């Protein structure tokens, strides 16, 4: 129930009073503080910085916002904010904001703005200059972008101060006025600048601490995840840090180790280890290595390798060392196993009765076993390393070996089970049975050749002996067979006669009986025939039968003689040949005179042999020479002899009828005669016997002859001792 009891004048007065109040309120709210408020400003700043010094880095953001509020209220601005530049200063980010209630917050929108979008502004901030804008509308043309942006945000007036840390601009703090324009006073600018610095510092500190924390975490993770034991030990040998691995190695927890003496914990010693690598490292200034044993609490030991790195203060004084500890149990075991197997291999190599060697692609020896070293005349199998075949005692075969190596290496195909020669340590010739295979590395590439061989010299010698024995046996058999063959044929011949003439005899007697009649009378007409039968045919038959039987007797006797030649015991002694020939000639005197042959005997060297048999040989030869004289000329026989390399060579030369080439080999055949039966006497075993005799006495016989000119027979025998030179 309003009654207009106040007058119009009263109303007007109320209105103006209200206006004044509003104006003063406005002043009070919006007017910047004057000089008298300087003290209050300082107090504010002091308070902010004190607060911040003690701030826990985790609460930095909170505190910044609180500070922004304090300042905002104090300086009567509508919005306070902090912006951070990116690392490359290409973008800026609104990180903290305080708005007076009723003022539109902008932070959500102002993320990752490009600094190039506000070039005028950014360049000033970057140059560590304050940006003071009392009236946005009055911004110069150069700041067109800024003007546009700020007017959009309804900012009438603003001030931004750079935040710098260690000379680098990391962002800025800004204060906006939305409601009115503000002529920012110097005091205010200064205060804001200081605040900016404080923020900068704080943020920097926060960032640094963050980075440090991250770095620490990375290292911690690393240290605790590696397989190596890592421990940080101080100069007093107390453990400062022990990673997971080392704790595991020693079956302890970190808290068991930290603060304790390292020599106690790791090696159960009461004093610093004499081999302590940490001590060495700190003394020398470089890392030190040692191999020792770690001892666990349960008494178990394990081998370790330790590398200690010294750490120094900036002054150069040592402040401790880091030990990197590796459990080398497995390594040591592997080493032991390797050594075992290496030794085993060497034992095998040195004990098998086979030579083993290996060479590289250039046929240079890289190893061998003891046996081969011995073959090569080397003291140890190490001495062969680096040598080639050409430098060893079998250099004669070097080319051959090298060629074989090359073939195996090129082709990748093994050469197995083949024979090759080798010169032995005494220069003797040896035979080997060898195998060569290509050696490949893990990738399958051929890196050289591996060879083995057996010495088969003895076996080969035996084989060769066997060969020659077999040959000799075969030859002997052949000789036997041919003797049997020839003999059986030669015996057949007289048998044919005996058989044939026996039948003739039979027939003759049949006829004689036919002629005798039953009464015992003979027909006169039959007499001539009967006469012939009795006086010619029958005697002739009988004669042939007897002659043939005699012939067989002779043949068989000769055969017996020949066979005895092999069995009779030889009496080898020096023979005075001149004397022997004289004796022979004397015993053949009759034949010599009869045939009117002239025999000349030169001076003859003595030989070694069985006198009786050698005598037979020369008798046979002289006999033959006399038998086969030529009717065309006077017979001459010459016996000569000489010594050659401890052998005596005699020659019985005649100028007889000679022997045609085709027969020269056959003369030594048993029973062979050059003339038909009946013309020249002889069973034809003379030369066969001679050959036999000489073969048994390590001699030989051969001939040279020309038909119509004459024949030379040569006899070779070992010289008597006193001739050998």
């Amino acid at each position, binding site marked *: 129930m309003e009654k207009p009891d106040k007058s119009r004048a009263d109303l007007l007065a109320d209105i103006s009073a209200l206006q004044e109040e509003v104006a003063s309120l406005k002043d009070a709210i919006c007017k910047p503080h004057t000089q008298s408020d300087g003290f209050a400003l300082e107090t504010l700043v002091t308070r902010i910085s004190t607060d911040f010094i003690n701030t826990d880095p985790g609460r930095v953001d909170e505190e910044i916002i609180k500070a922004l509020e304090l300042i905002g209220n104090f300086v009567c601005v509508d919005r306070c904010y902090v912006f951070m530049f990116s690392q490359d200063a290409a973008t800026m980010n609104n990180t903290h904001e305080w708005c007076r209630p009723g003022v539109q917050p902008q932070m959500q929108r102002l993320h990752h703005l490009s600094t190039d979008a506000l070039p005028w502004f950014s360049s000033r901030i970057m140059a560590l200059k304050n940006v003071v804008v009392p009236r946005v509308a009055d911004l110069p043309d150069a700041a067109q972008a800024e003007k546009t942006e700020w007017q959009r945000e309804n900012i009438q007036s603003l001030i931004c101060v750079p935040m710098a840390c260690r000379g680098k601009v990391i962002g800025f703090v800004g204060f906006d006025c939305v409601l009115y324009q503000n002529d920012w006073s110097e005091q205010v600018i200064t205060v804001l600048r200081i605040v900016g610095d404080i923020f900068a510092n704080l943020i920097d500190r926060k960032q640094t601490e963050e980075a440090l924390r991250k770095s620490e975490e990375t290292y911690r993770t690393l240290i605790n995840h590696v397989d190596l034991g890592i421990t940080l030990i101080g100069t007093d040998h107390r453990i400062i840090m022990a990673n997971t691995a080392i704790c595991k190695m020693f079956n302890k927890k970190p808290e068991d180790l930290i603060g304790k003496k390292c020599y106690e914990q790791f090696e159960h010693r009461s004093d610093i280890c004499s081999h302590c690598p940490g001590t060495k490292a700190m003394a020398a200034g470089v890392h030190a290595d040692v191999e020792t044993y770690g001892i666990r609490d349960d008494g178990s030991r394990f081998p370790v390798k330790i590398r200690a790195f010294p750490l120094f203060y900036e002054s150069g004084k040592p402040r401790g060392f880091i030990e990197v500890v590796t459990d080398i149990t497995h390594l040591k075991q592997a080493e032991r196993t390797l050594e075992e197997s290496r030794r085993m291999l060497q034992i095998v190599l040195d004990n098998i009765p086979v030579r083993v060697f290996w060479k590289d692609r250039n046929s240079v020896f890289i190893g061998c076993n003891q046996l081969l070293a011995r073959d090569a005349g080397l003291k140890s199998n190490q001495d062969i390393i680096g040598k080639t075949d050409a430098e060893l005692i079998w250099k004669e075969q070097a080319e051959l070996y090298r060629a074989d190596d090359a073939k195996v290496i090129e082709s990748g195909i093994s050469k197995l089970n083949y024979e090759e020669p080798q010169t032995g340590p005494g220069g003797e010739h040896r035979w080997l049975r060898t195998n060569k295979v290509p050696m490949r590395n893990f990738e399958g590439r051929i890196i050289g050749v591996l060879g083995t061989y057996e010495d088969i010299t003895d076996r080969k010698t035996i084989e060769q002996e066997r060969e020659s024995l077999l040959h000799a046996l075969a030859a002997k058999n052949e000789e036997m067979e041919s003797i049997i063959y020839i003999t059986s*044929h030669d015996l*057949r*011949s*007289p048998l*044919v*006669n005996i*058989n*044939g*003439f026996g*039948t*003739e005899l039979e027939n003759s007697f049949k006829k004689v009986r036919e002629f005798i009649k039953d009464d015992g009378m003979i027909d006169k007409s039959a007499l001539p025939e009967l006469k012939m039968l009795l006086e010619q045919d029958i005697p*002739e038959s009988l004669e*042939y039968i007897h*002659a*043939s039987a005699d012939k067989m007797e002779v043949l068989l006797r000769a055969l017996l003689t020949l066979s005895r030649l092999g069995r009779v015991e030889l009496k080898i002694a020096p023979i005075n040949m001149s004397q022997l020939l004289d004796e022979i000639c004397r015993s053949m005197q009759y034949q010599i005179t009869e045939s009117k042959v002239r025999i000349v005997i030169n001076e003859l060297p003595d030989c070694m042999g069985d006198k009786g048999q050698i005598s037979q040989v020369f008798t046979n030869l002289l006999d033959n020479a006399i038998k086969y004289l030529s009717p065309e000329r006077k017979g001459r026989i010459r016996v000569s002899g000489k010594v050659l390399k401890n052998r005596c060579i005699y020659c019985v030369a005649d100028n007889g009828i000679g022997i*045609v080439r085709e*027969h020269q080999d056959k003369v030594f055949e048993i029973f*062979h*005669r*050059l*003339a*038909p*039966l*009946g013309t020249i006497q002889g069973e034809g075993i003379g030369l066969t016997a001679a050959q036999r005799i000489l073969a048994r006495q390590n001699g030989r016989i051969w001939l040279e002859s020309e038909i119509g000119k004459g024949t030379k027979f040569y006899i070779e025998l070992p010289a008597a001792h006193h001739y050998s030179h």
Partner: protein
Amino acid sequence: MNFPQLIITVIKRWKIRNDIIILIAEDDEGHFILAKRLLRKAVTNEIMWLRDGQETLDFLRMQGQGPRRDPQRDYLLLLDLRMPKIDGFEVLSQLQKETDLKGIPVIVITTSDYPDNISRCKALSCAGYAIKPLKPDFVDTLEQVAARY
């Protein structure tokens, strides 16, 4: 050349032409006498003795010191294999090489029945082969060979 497989028992003994001269090349006198006697009982042909391979060839080739072949006459040769100097095989092969001699039929007579020898002689174109001592049926062989003349 046909080697006679069947011996035909023949009563007729005068089949062979009696103008053929029979040569016996044989080094053993006894063997020669036996052969001659055997033949004498059956044929009247002239029989000549050649004492070894050399003499045989000289005779047939009409050279040398001794008797020589008459080109107008026909011959039949009984040849021993084992003779000194030049043996029967050698004689056979030489005969084959000479055109006017290879027509002469040769019967090899020898102590050996060794198959290799037989086939060797066959290869050298011998007309027949007989084993010593010669039996009466040898004459049949002789007649057969001569008949082909």
